[in-house]
Structures are given as C-alpha cells and as structure tokens.
C-alpha cells in the first residue's frame, strides 16, 4: 500500500523539460541546499512529516494487520500484529469470491481501455484532419457531453442495457434489436464506456501537435487515413496514448455506481461491486472484509508502481488539455 512513488521528474506545467528537473541541483556538491532547513527547524520538519505519515498510513496499517490475523485473535486485539495467518485471505479469495471478481474487473478494464484507445484515436483524428459538413456542430456536441455526469445518465442506461435497444429500422446482420447482453453480463459493464469525449479531445490535441507537413507528406506518398494513424501517428503520440490508457484503465477499474446497479448475481461482480457485496453480507466479520480489501488493492498498486510516469501525465492531462 505504501509503494506508489511520485516520480521525481514532473511534467506538470513544464512537461517538456522534465528531465532537467530530475537532475540534482547545480550546488549538489555542498552539504546543504540554500533552502534546506537545518538544526531545530530540520528536526521540527522531520517530526511533522513523521506524525502526518503515521496518521495517513494508519488506516492502511489497521487494514493489513486485521487481514492477516486469525479470527479468534482478531477479536481480542485487532491493532497489534501478534499473530499471522493467510487463512482469512484464502477465505476471502475463495468463499468471498475475490478471485472471480479480480478476473471480471481485469477483463472489463482491459476491454474498455483497448476500445477507448481505438475510438479516441479515430475520432481525434477525424476532428484534427478531416473536413466534413457539420464538423463544427458535431465538435461542440462532443464537447457538451463532457458536461454530463455519469450520475445523470446511469438511470436510463440501466434500462437500455436491461432491455436492449430497439431501432426504428432494420440493419443488415444486426436486425432491428441490439441486445447488449442484459444485466450481469460483461457487455453491460463495457459497452457504455467504449468511447469518451475526453479521450477524443486528448488525442485530437496530440495529433494537432504533430508537425503539420507530416500528414501532407504521407498523403503524397499515397498513405491513407488508417495507414497514417497506424504507421505515422501512433508511434509519435505514444506517450499521450499511454497516459490515456492508464487513466482509462484506472477509471474503468474503479467504477462503483454502475456495476453495483447492473450486477445482482454474485459471479458477475467486479472487484468494486464485489467488495460491496462482501461488506454488506459480512458485517460481523470485519477481518474477512479487510482481507478482501487488501486483495482488491494489490493489482492497482502493482499497476501504479509500473506506470508511475504515465500516472502524472494522465492526471495532468485533464489540467492542461481538458
């Protein structure tokens, strides 16, 4: 729980010279930087940092300690790590169903991430390079969807997913009814999030930042739209793509409201709605719930440790380009 690091080089306001910032300052050979506190002030600052760290990590500490304590010992003194067992973790994994939930969440988050990277690239490219009638109106319509919170649409989306979509006309191959899998299906968890305006604008901006002759040169070489995206644009906008992918993966993984509404069968839950079920049906066994919480937190912890760099980019993308 404690291992997510803030990468030293930070894009933030100055994304381009992040590498400069990571080097030690020029006066690094001295023992103290000019603004480094020393003496009592130094001690005071450390003391303050330690106190706050203890406070911030306290909920994590109590969670981890209780997750690894046998149930009988847990009730006597839940705060002291005087005994250790994996039994509770094992119970959460099997009868608590956490293993199944992790699998479901992984499938859903990967599917949403993959789809959003593709749809964002395509629509971002369309807004960046294509001229078509009604372009402005569509552009502002996309922009406007950013203002609509999930909470306003979830209600009707529930009905759409539950009963499918009946079209007023018949499409080849599909017919006039799109079923969407119904409640408790993977499709239900995935389909509403296949595309976002956020991703569209992020990719549009990244594509517009490419040198303008590039598209022209590719066109003269006879490279079409999709060829340009695949072979020229993708390698160049890879950092933005990675940030978008991480941001999307985390958002998909952390969804709470949507899965807890459309899932009512135990096996179909994601990690988040599964934790909800675990908590509400085991109020008398907090250590089992805490064990589930530990299991649920570990994959994201690993993802964040691997992709620290993209995390800051992903978080600041909203600030700079949203």
């Amino acid at each position, binding site marked *: 729980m404690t291992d997510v690091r803030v990468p030293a080089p930070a894009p933030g*306001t100055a994304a381009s010279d992040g590498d400069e910032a990571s080097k030690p300052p020029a006066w690094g050979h001295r023992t103290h930087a000019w603004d*480094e506190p020393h003496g009592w002030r130094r001690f005071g600052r450390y003391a303050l940092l330690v106190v706050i760290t203890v406070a911030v990590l306290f909920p994590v500490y*109590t969670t981890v300690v209780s997750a690894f304590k046998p149930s009988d010992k847990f009730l006597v003194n839940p705060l002291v790590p005087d005994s250790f067992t994996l039994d509770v973790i094992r119970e959460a994994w099997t009868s608590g169903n956490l293993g199944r939930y992790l699998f479901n969440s992984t499938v859903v988050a990967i599917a949403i991430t993959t789809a959003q990277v593709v749809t964002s690239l395509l629509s971002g490219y369309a807004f960046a390079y294509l001229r078509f009638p009604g372009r402005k109106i569509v552009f502002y319509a996309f922009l406007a969807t950013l203002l609509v919170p999930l*909470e306003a649409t979830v209600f009707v989306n529930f009905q759409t997913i539950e009963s499918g979509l009946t079209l007023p006309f018949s499409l080849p191959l599909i017919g006039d009814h799109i079923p969407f899998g119904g409640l408790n299906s993977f499709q239900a968890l995935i389909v509403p999030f*296949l595309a976002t305006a956020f991703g569209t604008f992020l990719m549009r901006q990244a594509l517009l930042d490419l040198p303008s002759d590039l598209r022209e040169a590719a066109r003269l070489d006879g490279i079409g739209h999709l060829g340009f995206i695949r072979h020229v644009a993708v390698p160049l906008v890879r950092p933005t793509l990675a940030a978008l992918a991480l941001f999307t993966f985390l958002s998909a993984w952390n969804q709470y409201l949507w899965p807890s509404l459309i899932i009512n069968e135990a096996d179909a839950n994601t990690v988040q709605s599964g934790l909800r079920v675990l908590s509400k049906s085991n109020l008398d066994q*907090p250590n089992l719930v805490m064990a589930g919480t530990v299991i649920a937190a570990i994959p994201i912890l690993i993802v964040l440790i691997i992709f620290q760099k993209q995390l800051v980019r992903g978080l600041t993308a909203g600030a700079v380009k949203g």
Partner: protein
Amino acid sequence: MLAPSAFILGLFIVYPLGRAVWLGQQRCNAFGDQCRSNGFDQYLDIFTSNEFQSALRATIILTVITVPLGLFLGVGLAVLADKHLRGVGFFRTAFSSTIATSVAVASLMWLFLLQPSVGALANIDWINSLFPVIKDPGLLQDPDTALPSVAMSSVWAGLGFTFILVTASLQGVPRELHEAAAVDGATGTMRFWKITVPLLAPTLIFVVIVLTTRAFQTFGEVDLLTNGGPRPGNSTTTITYFVYGEASVIASDPGLQAGGAVLLFVILLFLSGLQLRGLGRRTDLG
C-alpha cells in the same frame, strides 16, 4: 471514423439525458409502473421537497468540508515534502499512497477504522476517553458526526491525487525565483504567497474543480459507510445517494429518480459554469 465514438456518446450520454428529462416529469404508482405525465413542474416539486433539500444540504456540507481541507492538506504536504531533505522520497510515497485506493477500498478501510465495537479507533483507550462518541454510538452512527466522518474518509481517499498533482507542478516552479527572492530578503511565507501560489494557480483551480465535482457525485462512501443514515434524519444522504441508493425513500420510483438525476445534472452544470467563469478570470495569473 467518427461513427464509433458518436454512436456510443449519442446512445449512452445524449439519449439518456434527453429521456431522463422526459421521465423526470412522470408520476408512477407505488410499484413503480403505470407512469403518466405529471407536468414539468414536478421538477420544482422534487427540488423543494424536504428530502431533496436535505440531500442538497448534506452534499453542500460535504463539499464545504472536503474541498478546502483536501486542497489545504494536498498543498501543505506537497510544500512540506518539497524541500531537499534526506529521505523525502519515503514521505512522498506515503502521502501519494491513497491514490491506489478505489472508493470501495478506501471506504471499507474507514468502515473498519470507525466501527464502534471491534474497530481500530474503538480499541485505542486514550482516544476513546477523549471522544466517547467513538464507542457509543459510533462516529458513523451519531447524526452529528456521521457526515463529517464520511467527509474525512473522502479527504483521505483524495489526498494522494491532490498531493501528486501539486507536487508535480511544484517541480515546475523555478528555484531561481525563490533564490532571488530570498536574496532580496523575502521570507518563506512571503515566497509561498507571492511565487508558489500564483505559479500553481492553474493546478489549484483544476484541483478545486475536481474535488467539487467529486463531492457532488459522492455515492460509494455513503453506500458503504452509512447507507444514507443514521435514521431518522438521513444526515448522510447526498443527492447521488438520494437518487440511486437502495435505502433511499425514492428507490422504487423511476419518475422521481430520473427527476433527481436531472436536477443533479443541472446543479453540476451551474457549478461548472461558475467555475469556468472563475477559470477565465484567473488564468492570466498562470
């Protein structure tokens, strides 16, 4: 190329919003069916109802606690851990760590922390004797402390996000500026307000927007920590919980639920309008 995105956004954002506006003026029977039009002044009825007003009040209190406190802690800790201290990396890791928790994970940690009989705080004697409410009836069970406790869990969960963003943009503040000001005799406090804050302004505004929106969308914390209770009074029923919570009074009334969802959208729209105006005025600082 636009078709996939346009189809999804149209079907899952534009259409449901329009349909919710239509459904929101319908009145249904006790079983939630046989709905019929009740006129658009139903929105006014919902808005002025005691239940919605109470949810709005809870949401605003939550916002008033979490946004300033979250901003203060995020900026404070980022500045505190920005100095060239040995081992500062450890503290940064600790302060960022809550970014790894989802709403469910963070809320369940706090549920155990605050649980009145076997919970963590209830097992520390000196804290208990200072605040007897922790054991009886429990911070989440007492109508006066329930909402602030939910807010604390929210602030904790959001700390990592704020800390990482502010720390990242602090690195963009040139040290030469601080050094030059220090040579001219500016104290640390003066430099913080005259150099750090103006240069961080765009980030701080972004953080305020995100924290405010998040507060108005609070659902998971309430669902897991209090179920909208303690009852009666429902002091932690936020607007989102009022609309979607399984223990909400309107849980089986689709017309009122849709109406509440639309009102939430209108309120958020109003807030983002305010914030965009503020943003337009303040960006010249950055």
